[in-house]
């Protein structure tokens, strides 16, 4: 496996009085797609937010492409080439679809070729180009949130539950988009509850439980080990469908 583009060592995060992350450790290899799995409340979203600097790590170290980003501000981290797609349709409702995408393109206006690539997968965005994003449906908002993160090449994408509430056809398009990104120069860390989606896409896996990483390894091996899945995720056989 290639050298990690992102590595977390002993990361602790506290939110107010609550101690959420207890020494989180895992790597995201360059050019790979790592799935971050775990039950509800395991600390997956907090881990992504801590990487982005939205919650400050109280201890430990986060390194991105060899640089220590633990104490950097969120905009500094973003400008290093990390894009974050938060859970629950994180778009700017008052801005049009076009403005949302232009805003996210930090290296200049979005390239036509890149936009066409996005439109081929999420055609609704082209159709509603000048519509305020608040008027889109839930699925379309989620498409826009993902499109915003991939409107220009990034080194690392952090994606929180991209398939939540999406129709199967759109999920298929999203899998295709992530696969193509992975085959390009982008590394991905994706939080996902949908195990069928996770096993189709992930190279590596990190499973969290109660604010700690309980397992890291290869996705193919993890997908084949029903007992381990049952132990860490509480999954039954139906999750494999």
């Amino acid at each position, binding site marked *: 496996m290639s050298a990690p583009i992102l590595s977390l060592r002993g990361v602790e995060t506290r939110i107010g009085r609550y101690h959420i992350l207890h020494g989180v450790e895992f790597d995201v290899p360059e050019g790979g797609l790592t799935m971050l799995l775990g039950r509800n409340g395991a600390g997956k979203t907090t881990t992504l937010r801590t990487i982005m600097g939205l919650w400050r790590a109280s201890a430990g170290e986060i390194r991105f492409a060899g640089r220590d980003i633990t104490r950097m501000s*969120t905009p500094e981290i973003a400008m290093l080439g990390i894009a974050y797609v938060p859970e629950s349709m994180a778009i700017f409702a*008052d*801005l049009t679809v076009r403005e949302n995408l232009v805003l996210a393109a*930090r290296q200049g206006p979005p390239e036509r070729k890149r936009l066409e690539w996005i439109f081929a997968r999420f055609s609704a965005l082209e159709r509603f180009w000048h519509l305020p994003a608040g008027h889109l449906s839930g699925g379309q908002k989620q498409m826009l949130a993902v499109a915003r993160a991939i409107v220009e090449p990034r080194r690392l994408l952090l994606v929180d539950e991209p398939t939540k509430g999406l129709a199967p056809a759109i999920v298929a398009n999203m899998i295709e988009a992530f696969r193509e990104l992975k085959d390009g120069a982008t590394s991905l860390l994706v939080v996902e509850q949908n195990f069928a989606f996770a096993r189709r896409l992930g190279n590596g896996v990190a499973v969290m439980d109660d604010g700690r990483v309980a397992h890291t390894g290869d996705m193919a091996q993890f997908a084949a080990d029903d007992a381990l899945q049952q132990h860490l995720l509480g999954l039954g056989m139906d999750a494999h469908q």
Partner: protein
Amino acid sequence: MLRTLLSDDLPRSRWLAAALLAIVIGLALAPFLFPGAKSLNVAAKICVFVVLAASFDLLLGYSGIVSFAHTMFFGIGAYGVAIALTRLGSGWDAVAMGTVAGLASAIALAAVIGLFSLRLRTIFFAMITLAVASAFAILASQLSDVTGGEDGLNFRLPAILRASMSFADTPLFGVRLNGRLLDYYLVYIVSLVLVLVLLRIVNSPFGSVLKAMRENPFRAEAIGYRAVVYRTAASCIAAAFAALAGALMALWSSQTNPDTVLSFDIMIDILLMVVIGGMGTVYGAAIGAVLLVISQNYLQDLLLVANKAFAGVPLLPDLFHPDRWLLWLGIAFILCVYFFPTGIVGRLRSD
């Protein structure tokens, strides 16, 4: 051409387009359509307040920043010109120096307040601006050697802008072509240009970042935009436009005192203009400014007519007494907020 001029921000409502056209044409022809010193004064005040309210909307409507210091920047611009014209004589060089000094002071002060306070929550920032504005108003009335104290400054305008300067012996459509008329058109044209520049700013990528931050600052930071930098920039731009509006006010009224350019009443007025017209729309500020300035100047006249019409009827003449104009203005404001919660422009655009 029009699309470029309006920075692609078209009125998107037939009624709004008609109202804006009526305002632009009405103000352009005001000296001829509504002759008389009072109506010309009202028209000039509308021009200045459109700029002032639109620049305040850049903060309140577009950036979600609540500031009570906007009048202070208006006052800084006005005092800049007033002090320069008082001390340096009544030339254009004094006007230019006063304007530049007022502009630079307003931008510098806005930057300092912004960098130190915009990290705070909205309500604390609002309180700090209130404190700074109050301190500045007290300072302006105390430093009587410089500002003229409570009495303010009365100064002479450049000769070409004085009523005594005549450009033609015969009036045009009954209106004397003098320096006062030129002064009005100076105020009108500069105000129009400033509003178009503001439209360009709010419809630029910078404007999109401000709107994004208003909606969710954390999300905007996660894309790489520094909230405090963008908000401070918005504060500085708004302060610069307020200072220019103040300079125009001084050039029109040829006198400046704390009541006319620094009072908290002006702050309330521009807040009302923005809320009534519709927050987050430059056009809303224009509609609000026109409605409020006209109400403030003519509501009493209208009430006097009603008062006389209801003479002899019990209670009604008292209710419509000209002294009750603030009561009626208040009622009109409440009705406006109740029926047009998104402002007049928001309502017109949603139809």
